């Protein structure tokens, strides 16, 4: 699961606690990756210090990765199948049920 976020993005703050819980729940079966876009390093570090989000994050100042995979705005959440194919893209804040269903689909493909 690849989540595109930024420290200046208000909706990203809303979904951060849910992503943290999801990582605790699914982190042993699904790889979580964060992509911080169009941001300052200081802002990004402060965001991560505030919300935890204890998984790998990459700094993408020019928004190259989300532009490559499509989707618009921030946040975006990409779900990849275990073999690397992009399965689904969710634009905007993701709710608990949608996140749980998509993570469940990813784990089923990995079984």
């Amino acid at each position, binding site marked *: 699961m690849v989540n595109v976020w930024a420290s200046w993005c*208000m*909706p990203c*703050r*809303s979904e951060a606690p849910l992503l943290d819980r999801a990582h605790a*729940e699914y982190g042993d079966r699904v790889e979580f990756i964060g992509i911080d876009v169009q941001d300052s390093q200081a802002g990004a570090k402060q965001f991560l210090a505030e919300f935890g989000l204890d998984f790998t994050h990459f700094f993408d100042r020019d928004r190259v990765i989300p532009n490559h995979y499509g989707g618009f705005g921030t946040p975006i959440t990409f779900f990849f199948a275990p073999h690397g194919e992009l399965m689904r893209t969710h634009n905007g804040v*993701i*709710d608990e049920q949608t996140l749980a*269903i998509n993570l469940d*689909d990813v784990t*089923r493909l990995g079984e």
Partner: protein
Amino acid sequence: MEFTLLWAVLTAAALAWIGLRIWPERVPAHALDRLLGAGITALVAGRLVAMIAQGVNPLTAPGDIIVIRGGVSTAAAALVFIATLAWTTRSVRDALDAVAPATVLALAGWHAGCVWRGACLGSVSDLPWAWALPGSQATRHPVEIYTATALAIGAWVVSRLGWRLWARAGAALAVISAVRLLTETLRPSITGGPIAWYIAGVVIGLIAPLVARAPWGPGARAPT
């Protein structure tokens, strides 16, 4: 991205309007305005409580309040809805009973709005009417459609009840809570869902008419 939620809200408002038209008995003046006002107030209150529970300070991030998809506290929203409705109608005695069926029908509309949001599905199922998300091999229960259907039936049942004080309002709360409780097992969840609040809703809804008729309750007869 919140526009799909707006469609769900409009679906709920449309069904509230229909509910007030088909069950108009004792409905207070401007009932639709009051229902919508109470609904919006409840959404904001539920969102504020959810933000605080998630560790987000509403004072430092006031813009987050409108990000409804970020989470809404069901219990806080329900309490504020009832309180606002009682306050705006100036009568906690009768108004809640009058608008109870339309409220349940409006909630059915909100759940049916999953069609606009693309968020109807729940746990995996092999039943013939199960749907699959695009690109998925797993078919799933259309749990929000189940919920909307059960609530619509519940609204009709509530409308058939007699006019014993708080019988309809209590039944509405019990129906809403019971439907959510019964369908919760079909909803994949990360946080576990507010199961305890749904159980509390069923219990409070069932005892509400008894409380209303208690010697100290609002329906107690004045001594002659």
